[in-house]
């Protein structure tokens, strides 16, 4: 039996290759540089293309061009790079360009501390580009999730023609863990639906579908792509009803399907007073804390680990919070996702515990906080 020992970043690279990704471009930035290194090593050997862009803006630009030419593309950065990606993320949304973006979050704000983890960008990923249209954000907790959720991310980007984020953290991306590939979930790989017959309008949809069929730039039929507000034919439109309908479709194509990609683990416990809501690396401390609370303090505590952050899994939150007196949201920041939990569970008591000091939230701190309430 052969066991791998890899970082989260390497597991993302493996997942990307498995999902059919053959184009990668990024700019070196700690703690994402090891993902660049992994792709530089793995992609050319698989007949793909891995490029180090002159900056983040160029890197995501190369990816969008390659994706429009039919390739599955990946880029990766951290908070400062996400800031530079913003305008192109908006383009990916507007142009319905499949793309997977990994944000390996680090201590911020701004340059912050490159070698420390944080959850500083969880709202930024959702609201960090102009227009405010929905995006998909998946959050791994360990190397297994890094592989599996990367495959899901590519599948969603292909099916829904949109940018999909992986919200990682230095504590996941650059922590090496034993990984038995036989025990890792490998979802079947899905490709973008191609236009097959009739006249081709790049942003037209059939019937009650929400996602336009794709044709590549470089194929036999000329394809138009534009960042300007456009109609189904890919030309600029000034017709308010066309504009509104188009944007509502962009919103609907993601939100109407969200149940199918609301990934989470719910560990309910009978007679629990408190529900912990956590994601990412902190979910692991929460698991350890929940076990300790039951074993050491006779305090059953339910746990909801969110692996899809956006769109917010509202139904999962509501179900988990039934019969619960207190919801405790844990984050490595000053309180961001807690606002979503409060919004969704508007009648519940929702408390926050977190810090953005470069340190992990420990199981002991969580136990103390749960007992305090």
């Amino acid at each position, binding site marked *: *039996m*052969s*066991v*791998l*020992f890899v970082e989260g970043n390497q597991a993302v690279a*493996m997942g990307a290759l498995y999902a059919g990704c053959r*184009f990668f471009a990024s700019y070196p930035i*700690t703690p994402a540089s090891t993902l660049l290194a992994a792709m530089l090593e793995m992609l*050319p050997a*698989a*007949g793909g*293309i891995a*490029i180090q*862009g*002159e900056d983040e*803006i*160029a890197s995501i*630009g*190369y990816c*969008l*061009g*390659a*994706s*429009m*030419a*039919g390739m599955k*593309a990946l880029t990766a950065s951290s908070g400062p790079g996400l800031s530079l990606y913003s*305008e*192109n993320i908006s383009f990916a949304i507007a142009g319905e360009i499949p793309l997977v973006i990994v944000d390996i979050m680090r201590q911020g704000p701004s340059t912050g*501390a*490159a*070698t420390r983890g944080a959850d500083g960008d969880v709202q930024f990923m959702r609201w960090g580009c102009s227009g405010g249209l929905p995006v998909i954000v998946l959050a791994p907790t360990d190397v297994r999730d890094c592989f599996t959720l990367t495959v899901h991310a590519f599948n969603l980007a292909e099916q829904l023609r949109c940018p999909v984020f992986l919200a990682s953290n230095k*504590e996941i991306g*650059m*922590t*090496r*863990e*034993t990984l038995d590939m036989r025990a890792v979930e490998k979802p079947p790989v899905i490709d973008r639906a191609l236009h097959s017959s009739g006249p081709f309008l790049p942003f037209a949809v059939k019937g009650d579908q929400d996602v336009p069929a794709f044709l*590549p*730039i*470089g*194929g036999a039929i*000329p*394809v*138009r*792509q*534009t960042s*300007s507000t456009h109609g189904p034919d890919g*030309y*600029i439109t000034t017709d308010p009803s066309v504009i509104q309908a188009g944007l509502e479709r962009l919103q609907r194509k993601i939100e109407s399907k969200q149940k199918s990609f609301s990934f989470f683990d719910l560990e309910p416990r009978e007679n629990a007073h408190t529900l912990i809501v956590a994601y990412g*690396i902190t979910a*692991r*401390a929460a*698991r*350890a804390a929940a*076990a300790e609370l039951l074993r050491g303090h006779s305090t059953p505590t339910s746990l909801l680990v969110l692996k899809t952050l956006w769109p917010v899994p509202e139904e999962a939150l509501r179900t988990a919070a039934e019969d619960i007196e207190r919801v405790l949201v844990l984050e490595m920041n000053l309180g961001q996702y807690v606002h979503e939990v409060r919004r969704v569970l508007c009648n519940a008591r929702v408390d926050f515990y977190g810090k953005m000091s470069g340190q*992990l939230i*420990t*199981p*002991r701190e969580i136990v103390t906080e749960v007992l305090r309430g």
Partner: protein
Amino acid sequence: MDLGADEVVIVSDIGCSGLFDTFFDTHALHGLHGRALTYAAGIKLACPHLKVVVTMGDGGLGIGAAHLLAACRRNLDLTLLVLNNFNFGMTGGQFSCTTPEDASVTSGFLNILEKPMDVCSVAANSGAPFAARCSVFRKDLPDLLIEAISFDGFSLVDIWSLCPARYGKRNPLSPRNIDAAINRLPPYEGPVSANARREYGSHYREQRDKTSATVELRGTEVVFEPSIEARREVVLLGTAGERVISAGSLLASAAISAGMHVTQKNDYDITVMRGPSVTELIVSPEPIIYTGVEQPDVILALSQEGVNRRRDLFGTMKPEGRVILSKGVDLPVTSAQIFEVDFKTHAIKKKERALAALSLLARTKDPVTQQMLASALQHSFQGTSLESAIDVLDRTTRIPLEALNT
């Protein structure tokens, strides 16, 4: 050029020139301001057979100058047409990077303060193998464009023109004085022989084809039984450049060969090859939930710098905990057992001490045995590196066991 509509892509930028893609019934991409060259590069790399023509105004050129430089450095087969009309037309006639100092524009007096960019000179000096400067009224412009597009590599044509709505209304610009202005500058007619070299795309594919067929991540075979029954937290505290993290990886590899679950994370400063180097390992027969080290079972205290970085850890240790201490390093107060080793008298150099300390730890069989460590060495090193590592282990065996007791 006898190209079909499906064999060409026009990649346009923002501004009046950004409408270019709508004039042609070819593949087209109209992206963000200043970034046209980036999409073009992605498309060309993904689809090498396509003729990629990029149009940018002098406006897009300014904002995307870094991408122009990269395109010149790289020499991917793209053609950039700069539609240069000396101002930002669409937004009302503000000055651009090519606006003359004496022009009248809608940016107040700001253009008086800046020297305009010579696009061809910048491109040629950045590695572009084809740069041409001409007037839009030039009679053989189509021939020049054919030459540029046919050129196998990055070609740039800086096309000077009038902006009738904005710049042209405030400044005396005509075909004649455009020609005069062009003639006052050094000529750029096309090929820049000093920059002639391989086209990037074909060069990239050639390099890629030289790499090995597949990259398989090497796993570790599980061949031993675990020597421990519970989780252990091991921290190595040393100095950057002294192979502390590799020692941690070796410990991990040794533990994995006994079927244990392992996590490893490192803590170091942003400086390179300076400062402390800390690696934290958790080794357990059970899956590891929390990856933080709370209460180390073992600390290898290899340097003062490393110890100073994590002084907080020592007070947390239990009496059963063990510290392997490199003589000369001062420790904070701890309840753990301390095994002091004088590496110097045993001729163990600084870069060897992390491995040597591991070997001493392995003698206790907790959390790994010497057999597991030897197996890890075989797995991780070869040739002279393997020989040197084995030599360190040999020299460590000569350190008598009594020296380990306090």
